């Protein structure tokens, strides 16, 4: 009997300890944890931000990667003490999370002042980290004639072969409208009307049977490399990255591309807020940030950093004058309101 009681007590104690360690595990002192988008992009960040920052402060820095989604952030913050500190987020996650109180407020004096940044990179809850584009991409070694617009993307007689698209309504609807003759500057105006949404879905329907849908940023590169698709939407940095590392001849069509800003945020309730703020300031210093385009072709939101980038690198960035000319800025406010309804409709449209 005694042995039993002891055993039972042990088991109850064991279960309780297990439960406690799961609930409270994140509350223990932990090293600064930074979360970004993985792949060759995060490799570059590790080299120019994470490791030098760790050396400077003499403390270890942990890094993890994620695939986005406000639900992930919501789950972490609502659990009490999050196990992430600094996260790089997309436009809508910044807007949504800031409204819902998932992020700490940014101390802009520490980062060097709002006037040092592009206007679109300044936010109550976030500091711009990169300017990146989603654009039409193709393998110049496979296509004899170069496509120049979304119109060409839709033209499957002139350019036979499948097309790659990021699965979801975001970007797909905008590109469809441009292919349907809407001027880049009018895209979101049209998309804000019910007729505009119908029009975009109808245009998307024209090539529905030819579309291969991708989800992770590395997939379109593989689709292009294997010849599975003739053209695809892709992130500009990854395209120039693979050209450099694997000697590919992938090209980007800048007119009609959509650019957006990714931002650093600090999760509410992080036990490392001071170190987190220091890190963001470190990653925003011109001498550090200006090294990024050497590794991956993303634009820099810190103006002094952008000025330090060598001319031949700067020409490849979404922020280059020529590349910006006919590009569209992603309308975060539109997607914050409409992503849920349009994704349901998109899924229904896919299933038709």
């Amino acid at each position, binding site marked *: *009997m005694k042995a039993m009681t002891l055993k039972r007590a042990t088991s109850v104690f064991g279960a309780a300890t297990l439960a406690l360690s799961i609930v409270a595990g994140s509350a223990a002192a932990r090293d600064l944890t930074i979360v970004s988008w993985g792949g060759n992009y995060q490799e570059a960040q590790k080299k120019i931000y994470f490791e030098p920052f760790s050396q400077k402060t003499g403390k270890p820095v942990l890094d993890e990667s994620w695939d986005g989604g406000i*639900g992930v952030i919501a*789950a972490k913050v609502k659990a009490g003490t999050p196990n992430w500190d600094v996260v790089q987020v997309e436009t809508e996650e910044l807007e949504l999370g800031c*409204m*819902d109180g998932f992020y700490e407020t940014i101390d802009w004096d520490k980062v060097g002042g709002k006037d040092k940044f592009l206007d679109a990179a300044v936010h109550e809850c976030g500091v711009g980290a990169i300017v990146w584009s989603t654009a039409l991409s193709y393998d110049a070694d496979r296509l004899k004639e170069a496509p120049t617009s979304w119109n060409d993307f839709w033209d499957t007689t002139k350019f036979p072969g499948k097309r790659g698209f990021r699965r979801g309504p975001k970007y797909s609807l905008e590109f469809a409208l441009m292919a349907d003759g809407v001027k880049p500057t009018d895209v979101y105006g049209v998309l804000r009307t019910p007729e505009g949404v119908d029009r975009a879905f109808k245009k998307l329907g024209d090539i529905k049977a030819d579309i291969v849908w991708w989800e992770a940023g590395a997939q379109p590169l593989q689709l292009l490399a294997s010849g599975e698709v003739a053209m695809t939407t892709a992130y500009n940095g990854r395209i120039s990255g693979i050209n450099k590392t694997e000697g590919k001849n992938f090209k980007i069509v800048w007119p009609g591309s959509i650019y957006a800003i990714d931002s650093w945020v600090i999760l509410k309730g992080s036990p490392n807020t001071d170190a987190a703020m220091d890190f963001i300031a470190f990653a925003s210093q011109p001498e550090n940030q200006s090294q990024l385009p050497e590794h991956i072709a993303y634009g820099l939101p810190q103006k002094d950093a952008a000025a330090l980038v060598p001319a031949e690198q700067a020409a490849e960035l979404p922020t280059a004058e020529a590349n910006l000319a006919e590009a569209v800025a992603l309308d975060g406010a539109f997607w914050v*309101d409409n992503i849920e309804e349009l*994704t349901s409709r998109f899924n*229904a449209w*896919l*299933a038709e």
Partner: protein
Amino acid sequence: MHGYFAVRSALRARLGAIALVAPLMCFVLFFFFWPLATMMQAAVTDGTVRGVLPETAAALSDWDGESGPTAAMQAALIADLRAPAQQMDFGDAVRRLNSEISGFRSLMSRTATAVRGAPEGSTLTLVGIDQRWGDPKYWQAIRRAMPLYTDRNLLAAVDLTRDARGHIAQAEGGASANRQILTRTFVISAAVTLLCAAIGLPYAMIIAASGGWVRTLLLIAVLLPLWTSLLVRTAAWFILLQNEGIINDTLIALGLTDAPVQLIFNRTGVVIAMTHVLLPFMVLPIYSGLLAIPNNLLPAAASLGATRLQAFRHVLLPLAFPSLMSGCLLVFMVALGYYITPALVGGAEEQMISSVIAFFATGTANWGMAGALGFILLAVTTLLYFVYGRLSRSPTMMIN
């Protein structure tokens, strides 16, 4: 005296048994039932809006629901927005309203900023801040969000909704396709299960019939994929099945086809890849079931004049049937939750219900919808489990 001790020792034995299963029970309760209950609760609870807008809730109870907003309703909403609320609760309420009408989010944040920014005592009209407040549909949406419990997520999970009069109605055409996606999930899972059974049963019989190093080799061939990451296996199929992949190259080299056969981004690719990935779950239960069958039964049947086919049909198959059924159940249940494989080697027509659940859970933090879809999946699966219970019994009765 003697009786007392007997009762005591029985009690002691009972307590001992309870103590032995206590860790298991704790584990199951904590890691299985508690999350399930939380999920179901998330699917049916509402009331975040009521918590943030209490005065509006009171004012709305006097409203006829048709005409424009009354002055009392507008004043109540302004008062609620002025009152300091927990930002996260406010965010939950706004998310709930925006899933009712797209655009509610920006309407609320715009209104809240205007109300909180206005000096104390100044007269504000909501319609002056944003004319959408004049439209009864926004107020109807707020009113619909007031009850503490709701069936809207469960209805929406099967493409139903409530119309203006509160009757259950079909959701607007083209707005969602959950029923279709659920059906597709079951169809794909069933196809994979049948294929796994068709391949797994003969394979398990060969393993059971072989011996020595052959058996080891055959078992390793089944187990090795289990030890490999699902992602790696799926990526391997991607490489094999693509237009310039090994299979198509071989077919073209043999002159069987001129142009590559489309094996990927369609149902074929998904079924092939999922069958491979799930095959161990079929082979292992059947194999262990076959091992338990005495190996002199088939010769005995033969000595009584049964042909090989008859011996298989009337002796081996009924005995192996329960393990075949448990293999089918395992494969089917695991297949229902598949997400990565359809996403990587499937096309638009192959997305299964878990990708929709993932969208609601991680994409929009709409845990109510994620919970409701999960609940529907769980309910249908439980139903199928009882069907399985029936099926797996019948052949035994056949022998009897």
